[in-house]
């Protein structure tokens, strides 16, 4: 049994806005084991990116309220001060974003930006540059000696994302957070990047948290999946449980709305209604206004996460009742 690398317990994040508090993430718990790819999947506004930012402790304390704990190797990240956190960011937890062009500095070469990261660990200059070239090879950039001298605008989207991944890997982090890493890329390039991420696990023993709205990516690389909706995690399971035996009505409907058929075979499943307003102090299951099986209990109390089969957790009154 692998150990937990990170364990999130009852995390809630509220943002103070003009319209009152928005409860972006509400009482979620999950864990990421060592050498595991965990995917948080959800539609826009479900709180998946907010969760990722919280893991890096990047949520501004002034206009937000954070509750719960994020235990990274036993330490609570939310209790660390900025100086202690700086030591963890990049070194132990690294993050890549959707648009690599926004994350790279346009006036420095790709190589020097990766060099800068390595130099933080007080590596001697020549050795550091050798490492840069090796990293470029590891992320399969062709012609690395030339590529280190290229500026970000001279690289294609796929190459930029590879530089980003390389930069993040250069310090051998234990956890890599990838926030929609391939959304801006073409399919053939996406598939190359996903292969690189899959390799990280076996080569460097890195755990990966993938944040995505794309079930294709989840099916492709995730070991375990958490399904988020309106700030809640509704279901957690391994990737086969989620795809083949979804238990929460939301997950079930989502799975049926994926275009896996052709139009001759009929229409796609849709989910009526829309996401509730998170500014309200909502009671009950956040999906109950759209749920075709909504019970009275769903409007009252929120359902606890229950383990239905081994490793498969779901928060739904209906499932509990049937059990």
């Amino acid at each position, binding site marked *: 049994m692998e150990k937990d690398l990170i364990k999130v317990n009852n995390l809630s994040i509220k943002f103070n806005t003009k319209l009152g508090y928005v409860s972006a993430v509400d009482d979620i718990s999950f864990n990421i084991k060592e050498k595991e790819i965990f995917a948080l999947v959800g*539609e*826009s506004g479900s709180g998946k990116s907010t969760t990722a930012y919280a893991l890096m402790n990047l949520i501004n304390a002034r206009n937000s309220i954070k509750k719960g704990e994020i235990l990274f190797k036993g330490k609570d990240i939310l209790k660390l001060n900025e100086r202690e956190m700086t030591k963890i960011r990049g070194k132990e937890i690294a993050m890549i974003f959707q648009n690599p062009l926004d994350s790279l500095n346009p006036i420095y070469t790709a190589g020097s930006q990766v060099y800068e990261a390595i130099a933080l660990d007080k590596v001697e200059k020549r050795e550091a540059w050798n490492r840069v070239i090796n990293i470029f090879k590891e992320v399969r950039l*062709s012609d690395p000696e030339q590529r280190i001298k290229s500026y970000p605008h001279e690289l*294609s*989207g*796929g*190459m930029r994302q590879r530089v980003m991944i390389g930069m993040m890997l250069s310090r051998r982090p234990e956890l890599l957070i990838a926030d929609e890493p391939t959304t801006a890329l*073409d*399919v*053939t*390039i*996406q*598939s*190359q990047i*996903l292969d690189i991420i899959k390799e990280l696990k076996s080569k460097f023993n890195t755990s990966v948290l993938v944040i995505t*709205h*794309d*079930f*294709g*990516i*989840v*099916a*492709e*690389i*995730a070991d375990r999946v958490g399904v988020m909706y309106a700030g809640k995690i509704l279901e957690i399971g391994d*990737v*086969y449980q989620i*795809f*083949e035996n979804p238990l929460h009505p939301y997950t079930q*409907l*989502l799975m049926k*709305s*994926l*275009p*896996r*058929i*052709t*139009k001759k075979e009929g*229409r*796609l*499943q*849709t*989910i009526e209604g*829309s996401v509730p307003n998170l500014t309200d102090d909502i009671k009950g299951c956040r999906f109950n206004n759209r749920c075709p099986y909504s019970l009275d209990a769903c409007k009252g109390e929120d359902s606890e996460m229950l383990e239905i089969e081994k490793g498969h957790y779901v928060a739904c009154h209906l499932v509990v009742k049937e059990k």
Partner: protein
Amino acid sequence: MSTIVKVDRVKKYFEINKGIFRKRVTQIKAVDGISFSIKKGETLGLVGESGSGKTTLARMILGLIKPTENTIYLDNKDIFEALGKERKEIRKKMGIIFQDPLASLNPRATIKESLKRPMLVNGINKKDMDEIIKDTISKVNLREELLDRYPHQLSGGQQQRVSVARAIVLRPEFLVLDEPTSALDVSVQAQILNLLLDLQEQYNLAYLFISHDLNVVRFISDRIAVMYLGKLMEVASGEEIFNNAKHPYTQGLILSSAVLSPRDRDRKKISFAGDPPSLIKLPKGCRLSPRCPYKKEVCVEKIPELREILPGHFVACHRAEEL
């Protein structure tokens, strides 16, 4: 079924000029001799990676830019020769829906004003307008009270419904759908795709559906055309493309596109080396040859023609029979 759109060997070259005298230094062959036709009531899916010329082709079909050579026919009329009234009549028969609904709606106009606009331009009787708008809005399943709102007050799905309503308000026969669902969440994507199919049945609409998401294209299309660097690589029915693709590029594209079931994640992939070449320095022979794992001498030397190898199945590959 009769043909509605006929694209006849069109080419679009963009010139790159430099210096005081704007001397032509090179050309970009964005679309290089493409022919196909779309029948009434049919959906042709157009897939290809960024830079393959999909959007340039779509803009030519709509008559927004003129081909460098050859032309396009709508209902047997040359869309670039028609003038004045005749041109207006042709344009009435076609419409477009874009990827980002918010960007394609005027932020200062109410939904009603946006829907009225095409009718004003085409001189529709003012008395009939309200009736037509009411009718159209119910066809796309929007409530009438939304008519007085502004685009930013609507959800992404509602905005895209408004775009659909605007495109069909003149009752066209042909629509270009340029990545209409890539900005939407899965459950909303399913709603829009179902809506497009309903409208197609009702009005016998023909669609050119441009997308990079092969699962979506497979769901909605009757036939699929695969484009790479300005050329068609393969055209065939959806089933043929997915079950019996002959072109290495199509095969690679299908295998690298994300699967929707984790059981398929270990499928064998065809990987293309590197990134697509620049459109300025195109290879002499087949455009895929620098990346193709099956290339032979002839592929580097000679550009393969698009030829029919099975009834209705066209491929541009020298080695189509062997692969």
